[in-house]
């Protein structure tokens, strides 16, 4: 069986000459929970945006479910992909239910949508998704009245409303506290396991990556520097992603390592 997502020799150079992605090739199978790690500016977000067709790669191809991602197939690709954002991107003065329904606009007629009318089965589906994320009783509440964690849950409900094959999550927990971040990632993992939806997730927290991922991909300056199933990932490999920074950055207590550090403190 062909993998769900096939990325071959992908490259992206922005108009200002920045090389965001540099010859990335990657296969993702159905049902995998893939975490992409990498320092800021390593091309994680660009990669996700290419998969969804939000930006056009300069070279290479992306094939999702045997459909080539290009401007012609955009609609059918996006139908299969749910997106989750760092800042949730909910419409604040719409109710949670209406926010989830925005994920189903593709299945509703334009005229009816402009009058804010939805078919009943779509509304039931949206409520089902809200129940899936544990927010059924908040269906009528305006999105901006919800807490950050609840807002991201509504974001997840919106992403799964159309039964996507793939969820792309761009730093979904970067603006949440660790407890809530944990519960949001658990929910994503749960959806991945129970509904067989593939998840590709950018996160900055290495501990969460190790906890939830089936596979970790390390990006650095647009190149893949690590691609390993979770059981093969070692502390050493994680460090290699971040360009061999100090050993104690993720593990063990922080302490000033060099005399220069102390000198700097004195100077201040």
């Amino acid at each position: 069986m062909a993998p769900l997502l096939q990325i071959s020799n992908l490259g992206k150079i922005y108009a200002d000459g920045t090389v965001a992605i540099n010859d990335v090739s990657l296969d993702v199978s159905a049902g995998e929970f893939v975490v992409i790690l990498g320092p800021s500016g390593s091309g994680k977000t660009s990669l996700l945006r290419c998969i969804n067709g939000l930006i056009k790669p300069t070279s290479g191809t992306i094939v999702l479910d045997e459909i080539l991602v290009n401007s012609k197939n955009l609609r059918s690709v996006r139908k299969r992909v749910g997106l989750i954002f760092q800042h949730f991107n909910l419409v604040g003065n719409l109710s949670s239910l209406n926010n989830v329904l925005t994920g189903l606009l593709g299945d509703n007629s334009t005229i009816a949508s402009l009058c804010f009318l939805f078919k009943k089965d779509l509304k039931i589906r949206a409520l089902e998704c809200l129940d899936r994320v544990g927010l059924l009783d908040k269906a009528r509440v305006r999105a901006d009245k919800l807490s950050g964690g609840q807002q991201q849950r509504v974001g997840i409900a919106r992403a799964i409303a159309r039964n996507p094959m793939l969820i792309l999550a761009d730093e979904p927990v970067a603006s949440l506290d660790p407890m809530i971040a944990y519960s949001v990632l658990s929910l994503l993992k749960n959806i991945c396991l129970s509904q067989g939806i593939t998840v590709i997730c950018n996160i900055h927290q290495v501990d969460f990556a190790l906890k939830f991922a089936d596979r970790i991909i390390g990006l650095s300056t647009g190149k893949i520097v690590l691609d390993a199933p979770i059981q093969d990932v070692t502390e050493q490999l994680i460090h290699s992603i971040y360009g061999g920074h100090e050993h104690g950055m993720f593990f063990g207590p922080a302490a000033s390592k060099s005399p220069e550090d102390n000198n700097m403190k004195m100077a201040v």
Partner: protein
Amino acid sequence: MSTTEHTLTLRMVVAPASNDEGSLNFSELVAFLNNQDHLTIHMDHCSDYAEAIDALESGRAQIGWLGPYAYRGIEEKGVVEAFAIGVPEGRNSPNYRSVFIAHANSQINRLADIKNKRLAVSDIHSTSGYAVPRRELGDIGIHLENAHEFSSLITAHNHDEAIRLVICDEVDVAAVSSINLDDSIARGVLEAQNIKVIHTSPDIPGAPLVFSTTLPKETKKWIKTTILNAHKSIKVGGYGGQLKKYVDPLESRIQFLESYLYPQWGWRTYANTILLIGLAWYCFIDLEIEVIGLFSDMSSYFMDVVGRMLPPDFSNPRDLALSMLETIEIAFLGTLLAIVLSTPIGILSARNVAPNKIIYILARTITVFFRAVPEFIMAMILVIAVGFGAIPGVLALGFHTMGFLAKFYAEDIEHVKSGPIEALQSTGASPLQVLAFAVIPQIIPSFVGNNLYILDRNIRMATMLGIVGAGGIGYELQSSFRMFHYPRVSAIVLVIFVTILGIDLLSSAIRKRVQ
């Protein structure tokens, strides 16, 4: 599977929600199934949820009742599927609630009072005895996972025991299923006036009967149909004792979700729409506007006027250009005056930066005053005061649009992001420094945009001001009208149009650079 096969023997497991046979009673239902001579079912009452789950997962049992939460867990693994759900007597839905009960003369009246008190819950697989109470308490910041948040936290074996603990004053509060509570009262175990309900959860979908997905399709279909129709032949029992009937979980699930639906168009939307149409209707009637007559008359007059205006008369192009230029100059100076005047007044009339309320109200009043006096009136008065020419035009435009610009600035300032302001305040910056470094930079793009809009508007208005004698192309327009020289009028209108178009292109180019 044919109906002649009598040998199929199945095992059914029932998780403990109650120790009373009456409130969790599947025996009549099982007997009814066994009497159909299709299969034989042996029923086991398990001592806890885990035992029942294990039996279904390992294949030792093929039918079960697990409560709604525990069943969801193993349904997700594809081990079982729900096929029937009981509707209690006197109810229309299989849903129930989790209730927090306390002794009638207890001091506890709200959920928040539970903190540091004695609480009884059921084991973690129970929906109404653990999962829902945990969520309800979590919403108000009490964590069932942290036992130290309570003076004691007791895990009761089942809901009936939890109820008994409250009655015997061994705990202050218990979280139990509304079905068990109603049932205990109905059986006379509990006097309703001895307890009080301090909190009721939202609806919980009822607990279904499940069977193993590995059962043959025919068998599953037979069991499901027989149970869904059993209430026609016997009095069916189940969770909550006597039941009205069993229904398809999928249908009841949809009904449950539907209970959360609300109309997309609330009554307010309808009321406002009707009000708006009514108001417009009233205005039409009050102004005696005849819509149909208007259109038929207008079209004939309009064609006549347009016919007389063509072709445009561009003779004396120098005069035309010079008077247009004069108009542009008046508008430019007027706009400049407006910007100079409105910058301080705009800042003072922004609620978030005004030094005090009196200055704020004063500044607001000034802006409203100059907006309220039309520039026409202002120009007429000024023409009388300082005579014909450009000066009354400049002053009229400057003061009138000052009122607008100040309002625009004030609104922009009121909507700036407060983050940078706080950041600067926290460094000890003075109010004026905060204004210069956190407020002004944020409003620069809209500042430029508003000024360009006012320039555009002032050029249009300056053409009209000529009519009252305040100089520019308006004077030309006025005299052409007076002499019924309509081709000249159309030429002037075209010149004005081209000028405004040019200003529009220029301002969008400038705006692009400022963003």
